């Protein structure tokens, strides 16, 4: 009997030791295989330097999500192919992933949408080598984005029939990690915000055109899957009024993109049922080579040629989890979303949204550029594009400037800031 106990204890010690050794081994060099999986860097039909269009799209059909293939074959999208390059997060994020490995646990919230679905998460990637769709979704939510960022961008409303309808210029500042921080002190959290369960602060304001100039909003997001709260400054009233920012399933600023489509998915994990459909290699614009700046927007988007929304991006073989997200809400514009979640970064470079009848409705493309320094900063936002295939209408978001880890402080994200920025 004693022998059995000793043997069991020895086995347990070995398992713990092996597990700990394996966990401790997550590094920048092995990040890909430890947290996700490696892609097929040279899949059949793929050739670095090739340009894919309608004439040769069949050669890479197996590497393309259906929505992207449709854009190539029916809407003249071209894909400039480039070689796969691995991406890893910052040293701080890797350290946090190792330090808190195995602690995060999902909570089954069933059909409930307002109950928290994660516990014991502190920082880093919560679920290296995720086992199910929900873990992949949490990995996306807490993927490495740096601790804060500032995005200066354009918004273009584009009709395939008439071209660019109008445009606006916006700035979006955010502390994406008020808690769960890894890069900038205080690490891992601003205690004052942690006490209030505030995990995200944002400030957004319009720069152009005239009738939008001065419009701004500050808002906060909680750990619990509650509505985002904040204040909106109304220039016509010269008042900042309290508002819910982004009702569930609402279009952002009358674009083709819902609030939940921002960055691929800006909703809460608890709002959807998640399921991994497959793990595969696809072509995605993770090193898209997009030039940024106002002057560069015409180099990124071909506004003049039908369908007026096609971007010039580099596409590379990427490992992805193909994840299906079905809304728990009875009334939601999408019946399901298919997200192609990058298995290294857990970003969502491609997403397909289906209408209530199950037909493909929208395709979302998020293109990224190289990080300035992968050891200290995330990939930079290159551009974003949402295409409504049914209305043949698109919303494009060229990047004028993006900086991460700028050292934004929470004091900026309050009502008085938008009052001062207003008229």
């Amino acid at each position, binding site marked *: 009997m004693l022998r059995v106990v000793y043997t069991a204890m020895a086995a347990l010690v070995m398992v713990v030791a092996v597990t700990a050794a394996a966990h401790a081994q997550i590094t920048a060099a092995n990040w890909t295989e430890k947290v996700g999986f490696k892609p097929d860097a040279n899949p059949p039909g793929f050739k670095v330097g090739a340009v894919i269009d309608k004439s040769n799209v069949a050669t890479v059909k197996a590497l393309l999500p259906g929505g992207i293939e449709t854009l190539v074959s029916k809407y003249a999208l071209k894909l400039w192919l480039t070689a796969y390059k691995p991406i890893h997060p910052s040293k701080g994020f890797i350290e946090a992933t190792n330090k808190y490995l195995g602690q995060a646990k999902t909570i089954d919230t069933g059909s409930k949408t307002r109950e928290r679905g994660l516990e014991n998460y502190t920082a880093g990637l919560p679920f290296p080598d995720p086992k199910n769709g929900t873990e992949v979704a949490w990995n996306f939510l807490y993927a490495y984005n740096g601790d804060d960022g500032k995005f200066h961008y354009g918004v273009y409303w584009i009709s395939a029939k008439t071209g660019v309808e109008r445009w606006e210029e916006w700035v979006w500042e955010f502390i994406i990690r008020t808690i769960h921080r890894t890069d900038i002190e205080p690490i891992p959290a601003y205690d004052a915000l942690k006490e209030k369960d505030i995990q995200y602060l944002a400030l957004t304001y319009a720069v152009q055109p005239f009738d939008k100039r001065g419009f701004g909003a500050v808002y906060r997001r909680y750990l619990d899957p509650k509505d985002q709260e904040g204040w909106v400054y109304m220039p016509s009233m010269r008042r900042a009024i309290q508002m819910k920012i982004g009702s569930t399933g609402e279009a952002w600023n009358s674009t083709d993109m819902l609030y939940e489509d921002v960055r691929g998915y800006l909703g809460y994990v608890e709002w959807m049922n998640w399921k991994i459909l497959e793990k595969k290699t696809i072509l995605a614009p993770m090193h898209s080579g997009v030039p940024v700046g106002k002057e560069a927007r015409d180099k990124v988007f071909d506004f003049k040629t039908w369908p007026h929304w096609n971007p010039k991006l580099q596409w590379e073989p990427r490992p992805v989890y193909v994840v299906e997200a079905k809304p728990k809400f009875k009334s939601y514009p999408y019946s399901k979303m298919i997200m192609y979640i990058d298995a290294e970064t857990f970003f969502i470079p491609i997403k397909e949204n289906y209408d209530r009848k199950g037909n493909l409705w929208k395709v979302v493309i998020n293109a990224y550029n190289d990080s300035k320094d992968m050891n200290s900063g995330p990939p930079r936002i290159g551009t974003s594009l949402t295409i409504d295939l049914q209305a043949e209408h698109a919303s494009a978001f060229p990047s004028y400037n993006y900086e991460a880890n700028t050292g934004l402080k*929470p004091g900026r994200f309050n009502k008085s800031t938008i009052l001062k920025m207003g008229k």
Partner: protein
Amino acid sequence: MRTRIAVVLGVCCLLWTVEARAFDDFEDLEDSDSGDSTEEFFVINGFIQNQTGIFFSTESNKWEQVKDDFGNITEYPIDHGDKLGKLSMMRTTLQLEADLKPAKGVRLRGVFRGVRSLQLEVDEYAQPPDPGKTGGDYVAWVNEKYYTENRLREIFIDIEAAPWLDLRIGRQQVAWGDMGQYRLLDVVNPTNSTWHFPTLENYDDTRVPLWMFKSVMEIKPLNGSLEFIWLPLLDNPEETVTVPLTFVSAWGLPRSPKQEYESGFNIRKKTPRYPGHKIEDSRLGARWVGSLGVLSYSLVYYWTHQITPPIPTGFVQLYDPTRGALEVDRSTGNAVIDEVFLDYPRQHIAGFSLEYAFQSPVSTIVRLEASYTPNATYPAVSSAEKTTPDYVDGQDLYTSLLTYEKHVASWGIQLMRPTFIRFLNPTQTFMFVAQALHTMVLDWDSKERYLDIPNLDSTETKQHSLTLVGAVTTSYLHGMLAPKIVGAYIPGPAPSGFVTAQMAMLFGNHWRAAVGATMFFGEDPYKGLGLFRDRDEVFARLQYQF
């Protein structure tokens, strides 16, 4: 004027020595400078727009003829109208807005507005303070005085003087309170809404900017900020008060109906005694803005003048040496009042506002706002007793009119809820807004009779008055079409209200347009919004912005 501007700019320069920073909602969490890539040294924007409206009410003019003891016949309006098919406005506006950022923490802002309007036939019924004109004169007078504009509406400097102190000095607008429509606490700037029904125009456009000093001090330990304003009233005195809506006719108040008391007076001139240009006329105010969790609140106090309506406080009759008595109209035998004085008494206003956003599934923002005025002044009904001193033969006679100072409290509540009606609009919410306003005279005495609107005996003040407002808006076609419906209802023995439907449109980045229609209703043409029941209107706005 130049001296005043020089003094203000001098003060600005003195204060422009300290580096800046701001406010902080979270204790102990400092603010940061984001290194704004959009900062531009100088920006100028603006628009040119035309607003056109046509009355389509079929309410007609009706008059009652009254014969006096001498057989003289006088006509009194018992309804008003005569506007069908006539222009309600034809107004072209050029507005330029410039921002200059000469240094970190300093901003100069200027807003120019130039307006030209057609003369409106309906202004023949205006009631200007100098009534010794003909209808045609009124039309030109209203157009020149109220519809025409060439001015630097706003010109101010913002200075972030210290990490806890922001200053704004110059001619500016201050918007206090949290609710739309009722403006219980939005009382700092007077308004000019002579060109359109005020609900249909932005507050930004109808407020009259005034010269003032404003400071905002952040007080971190209390999680709030203290705002202080001082208005030395350097402005043109006429602009320190709200433009009386009797002075114009297109969107002004109609001629008074037959008064309960037939005065037998002919009035030669009304003289508003505007405050301003004296240090003792300064206005002062303070506002505390804070938050308790997600509950926002503000506390407001403002020492001001009663900027609307003007209160008739007395009149003068002249001695006529040829008659050896007070002047009379020789054709009618009526006594002549040479001058009626309209005053803007001092007033205290205190109040508070609360704002709270309920989470889903309630998903409703609730705003509560209340104000208290301990000395609201009301004019007495026209039949009220007048205070006339013993007449001294051979001299002009001044007579005081009775007024009442009352304690008045008002409170309003607003509910705002974004709601999906997916089959009507799959990805945009409908914003539903409901508001109620209750005003109460606290020291009400049923024996006293006084008026909400001077010289309109039909508007006798009630102890309680209630107004209800509802609105709904949404957008279609990626924001290119934005329909809006607004309605208001004043219950009571003679209920009244209005409904307006509007469609705003975007065309590219430069063109904006709107079309709409407003219908007023009211059982009594001289009560509540029935005053406007001859003002049913279709209107359009076309704007080019740059």
